[in-house]
């Protein structure tokens, strides 16, 4: 394939107009020794059908099994409306809406997304998305230490271990000290706030459990409370974070209308209180008017951003996850209030599976606490060997050595009761 429409005669006449003879005359600023003398060692062109054949062949090296994997990435149904909208070239092939007069579609969609995230979280302000859940959280950590002026943050060990690794990477670059808080019975245990800017809690946490944010907030009046969520579908069922006076809410939004995609792209969600609106990283769409007085939308408060404030910007982020954000918006409005029922169904399936597993000899629930759609069980090795054609869950012992033989199991509407019963049958037979 080739996507360059100039014909040989076009090229010739253009070179003449420019006043050069050879295309290489246009590369004369490059030191001659550097010009490549031989073609790149990359295979030559393919036709569309050859390419698809090749890709399908590679794709078959993956294997899709019945899977109960979660832990930061979730297999949810994507309503047919989502693809219908995101595959429109007017959305997908547009740049960042810096020219609002011909970007009202993107801008209004951002504004509506921001509104829906504010509704779900109860927060005042949401941006137009970050890279992913982990980097949203890392940027919040930096934001908090800038606001509070202390280069130390508390991080619960019940925060997703991959996210904690990303936090460490960003903390090292920013010379921020991370103090990890132990987990007790699956929940964040005691801590001291002195010397810290913020505390980072995930809820539902990595074990699927709902953290006691009321208690945590009472102990953290002097520092910022930052939350992380990897399964924001839980928000449709749980009390919004604003009711616990959370300062910064972050999440991975992949669950909302984006495929698993081997871990990306999804979208980073970040929402805060009004007080921090000028500190928030990334883009914001705001309402305004055009010269005729018509309501319209534009990117706003841009002086926070790198293209204006350069080294003093609140973040270096430029490209975000726009199209994934659009998918999330379409997803949320397609479900509307029924999102709560979807959340309830996810929870019911998990409660059902957990209850049945707990009755089986050799399988134990590890934590006896309310969870949303993920839970931890310890499975005896001989039972596990019966499940070779099922991905039963995320093995936890790599991340938590004392959780040997423990698995994080996730249920969604894509693991219906029949599938769960099949697994139970395979275990008990």
């Amino acid at each position: 394939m080739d996507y360059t429409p100039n014909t040989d005669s076009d090229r010739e006449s253009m070179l003449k107009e420019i006043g050069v003879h050879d295309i290489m005359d246009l590369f004369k600023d490059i030191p001659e020794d550097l010009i490549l003398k031989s073609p790149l060692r990359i295979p030559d062109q393919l036709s569309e059908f050859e390419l698809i054949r090749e890709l399908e062949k590679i794709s078959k090296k993956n294997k899709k099994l019945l899977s109960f994997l979660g832990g930061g990435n979730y297999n949810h149904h994507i309503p047919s409306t989502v693809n219908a909208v995101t595959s429109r070239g007017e959305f997908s092939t547009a740049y960042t809406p810096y020219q609002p007069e011909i970007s009202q579609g993107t801008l209004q969609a951002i504004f509506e997304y921001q509104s829906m995230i504010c509704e779900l979280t109860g927060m005042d302000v949401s941006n137009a998305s970050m890279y992913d859940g982990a980097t949203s959280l890392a940027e919040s950590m930096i934001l908090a230490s800038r606001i509070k002026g202390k280069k130390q943050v508390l991080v619960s060990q019940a925060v997703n271990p991959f996210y904690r690794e990303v936090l460490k990477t960003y903390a090292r670059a920013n010379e921020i000290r991370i103090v990890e808080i132990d987990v007790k019975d699956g929940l964040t245990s005691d801590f001291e706030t002195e010397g810290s800017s913020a505390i980072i809690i995930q809820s539902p946490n990595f074990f699927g459990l709902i953290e006691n944010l009321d208690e945590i907030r009472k102990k953290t009046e002097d520092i910022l409370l930052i939350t992380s969520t990897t399964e924001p579908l839980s928000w449709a069922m749980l009390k919004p974070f604003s009711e616990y006076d959370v300062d910064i809410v972050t999440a991975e939004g992949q669950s909302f209308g984006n495929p698993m995609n081997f871990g990306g792209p999804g979208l980073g969600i970040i929402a805060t209180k009004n007080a921090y609106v000028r500190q928030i990283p990334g883009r914001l769409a705001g309402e305004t008017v055009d010269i005729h007085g018509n309501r319209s939308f534009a990117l706003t408060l841009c002086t926070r951003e790198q293209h204006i404030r350069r080294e003093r910007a609140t973040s270096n982020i430029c490209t975000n996850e726009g199209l994934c954000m659009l998918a999330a918006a379409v997803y949320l409005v397609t479900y509307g209030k029924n999102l709560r029922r979807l959340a309830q169904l996810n929870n019911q399936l998990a409660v059902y599976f957990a209850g049945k597993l707990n009755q089986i000899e050799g399988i134990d629930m590890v934590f006896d606490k309310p969870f949303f759609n993920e839970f931890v069980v310890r499975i005896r090795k001989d039972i596990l060997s019966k499940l070779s054609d099922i991905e039963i869950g995320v093995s936890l012992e790599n991340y938590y050595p004392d959780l040997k033989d423990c698995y994080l199991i996730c249920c969604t509407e894509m693991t219906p009761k029949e599938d769960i019963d099949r697994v139970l049958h395979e275990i008990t037979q």
Partner: protein
Amino acid sequence: MKNPVNLKYTKEHEWIRIDGDIATVGITDYAQDQLTDVVFVELPEEGKQIEQNGNLCVVESVKSVSDIFSPISGEIVEVNKALENSPELVNHEPLEGGWMVKLKAINEAELDQLMTTEEYNKFLTGIE
């Protein structure tokens, strides 16, 4: 020229007016015109001590961010809270309603280093 005679000026286009032991600071008409529409003024905390040429506040237009420096040293006694909701005052009335900060305990000797109206007007002609 809109520049009244009872003010003194800096090369960074700030003005300062002395009333008794209080000095009021803002930016000149020329400065507001260069900045274009001001959309936000980040004001300092009251009670803060500021050095001459120290960072007094930050003025933002839609596409730029500019530091405003203190013409003299002193203690910030009052900031113009009206700018929080009406930053456009800086454009519309740069020398009156658009003032930014009042200082006390000022170092009057530093005033001598600033330009008079006549000098500032001449300075502007040099820029243009």
